[in-house]
């Protein structure tokens, strides 16, 4: 098994004809993802790369194209509405890659999604990949390999670095999920931990956090109480100064809260193997498997 996405994922790409959307759609198809539709208002009736049908609305992509999941590459100013549209169209999963959605928009969006029981991954995230099955988003397929490790992360390239080290050591992955670097996100660490715990194939979990907020602390508490599989974790930003936004909108130490030190201590208390550097991931996992 895998979590959130697999061979049954029938994907609609919102913003399929844009620069990022078209590039990554090709990559996703090449990887073997079942892309059933694209949406660009005004281009309904056309085909992407002579194959994928394009619709004007997500509703049509669902009713006529048979989509059950959506990935969003539209520019930031249209992204929140794209999420509402996907939710109203009745998809089960929305992956929003777009960076730059205002936090107030996300705050209004979240209860709307909760009422419709739609899972959102992101925004401002690299998406998810279940190696050998499906890729939704931008995680490079060639660094992943099939296996038994679940990966969940707030970051992009740092995740690739760690996946790369895992794959090089023969530790393949069930699913890798990039949950995004914004202060308010859909799917969080705990959702992924619960899904990996419930997934028969996943044998161990890698959690990659960073400074800002308290999601890692809550994930640690959850792990101590509910996760029986081994978990190892990394926190980026040990050298980050307080009060500064480190690239990601959510990566900021406010006052004395959200530091790497407090997060690492919380992981430690929960029995999670704490990496001091990315290269520790393989030895720490091997100790626990």
């Amino acid at each position: 098994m895998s979590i959130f996405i697999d061979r049954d994922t029938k994907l609609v790409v919102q913003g399929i004809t844009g620069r990022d959307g078209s590039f990554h759609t090709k990559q996703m198809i090449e990887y073997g993802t079942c892309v059933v539709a694209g949406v660009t208002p005004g281009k309904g009736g056309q085909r992407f790369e002579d194959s994928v049908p394009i619709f004007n609305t997500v509703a049509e992509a669902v009713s006529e194209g048979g989509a059950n999941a959506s990935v969003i590459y539209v520019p930031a100013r249209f992204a929140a509405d794209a999420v509402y549209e996907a939710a109203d169209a009745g998809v089960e999963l929305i992956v929003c890659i777009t960076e730059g959605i205002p936090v107030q928009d996300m705050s209004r969006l979240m209860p709307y999604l909760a009422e419709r029981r739609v899972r959102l991954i992101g925004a401002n995230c690299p998406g998810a990949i279940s190696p050998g099955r499906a890729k939704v988003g931008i995680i490079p397929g060639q660094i992943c390999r099939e296996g038994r490790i679940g990966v969940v992360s707030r970051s992009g390239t740092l995740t690739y670095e760690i996946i790369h080290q895992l794959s090089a050591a023969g530790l393949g992955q069930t699913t890798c999920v990039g949950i995004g670097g914004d202060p308010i996100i859909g799917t969080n660490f705990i959702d992924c931990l619960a899904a990996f715990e419930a997934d028969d194939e996943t044998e161990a979990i890698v959690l990659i956090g960073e400074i800002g907020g308290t999601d890692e602390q809550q994930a640690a508490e959850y792990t101590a109480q509910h996760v029986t599989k081994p978990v190892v974790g990394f926190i980026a930003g040990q050298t980050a100064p307080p009060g500064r936004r480190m690239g990601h909108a959510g990566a900021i130490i406010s006052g004395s809260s959200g530091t790497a030190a407090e997060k690492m201590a919380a992981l430690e208390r929960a029995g999670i193997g704490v990496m001091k550097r990315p290269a520790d991931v393989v030895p720490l996992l091997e100790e626990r498997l």
Partner: protein
Amino acid sequence: MNLHEYQARARLKAAGIPVPDGDVASTPEAVEQIAQRIGGGVVVKAQVHVGGRGKAGGIKLAADPHEARMNAEKILGMEIKGLTVQKVLVVPAAEIASESYVGVIMDRTSQRPVFMVSPAGGVDIEEVAATTPEKIFKATVDPRFGILPHQAMDLAFHLYDDIAQVRQAATIMRQLYRAFVDAGASLAEINPLITTPDGRVLALDAKLAIDDNELGRRPDVAELRDLSVEEPSEVKARNASLSYIKLDGNVACCVNGAGLAMATMDLVKYYGGEPANFLDIGGSSSPDKVVAALEIITADPNVKSILFNIFGGITRCDDVANGIVTATGQITIDLPIVIRLTGTNEEIAVEILKRAGFEALTDMDAAVKEAVRLAGEAA
């Protein structure tokens, strides 16, 4: 982005919140004129983006316009926590009967705006929360409806006994919420919210922190950015679409992706060095961006070695390699450069760099160690 107090109070005033008279000035002469117009005692307040201005001597009471001018001479140009004071706000010295705190923040855990009030105002609210949490009262707001009148009244009853003041404070909270939404803020704060001896409720200080993601659709807020208080290198980086934060170390880091950039800085420290900066060159890695990055990095006199750490996923390693070759052709760099590239088109990148006389590593730890060693040698 943080607003200055004078900018925040203007937005609060526009939302209908009663704020005292006052004006901003950048010269002692102008301060004297404002004090003259206001009449009576005034307070001269440094306009810098840090807390603890009072303790640092940045807020001074003056009995008359002459004293206000003298105070302004002391405050203008002084440094508070590394920031030079360039403007002061002049307001009438208020007669204060009580001081409270009222604030609204975007709370990450509940994913909603949360109102916080406290009758213990006029001091650092984090300290109140730490020492006397029972003096803080909260209400979670449904962002689709805003703060409801009854929520505002409930909070206001924790601040005042007098029903007229309770109603004034509740109105101010609803106005503050509107200002918070209209500015695209992640935090809006009045500290202190005062009562005067004659029973009025007034906002004596104002703070607004803006979500940077809002600036594109709110030009009226974006234009309030004060470039003079920012590190010039950070302004330059922002204009080049780079995410850069200057630090005090000597190993410059040039990385694609924020998480990897932080992890690279951490690894520099792990191997005994100190990072000179945070720098995310982003996903697309045009030579122009690499040139801008190298210009910014090399302008910092503390830098003793330069470390590139690129994980090619969407970013192609050969693009970055070309960028480095172009950049080093355009500007002279006397510092040692350590390059680590791995992922998409790694082999082509290594070849490009080799031809230009650079060595490329593929292991992150080895590259960081080498950059730290070279910086140590040069220091």
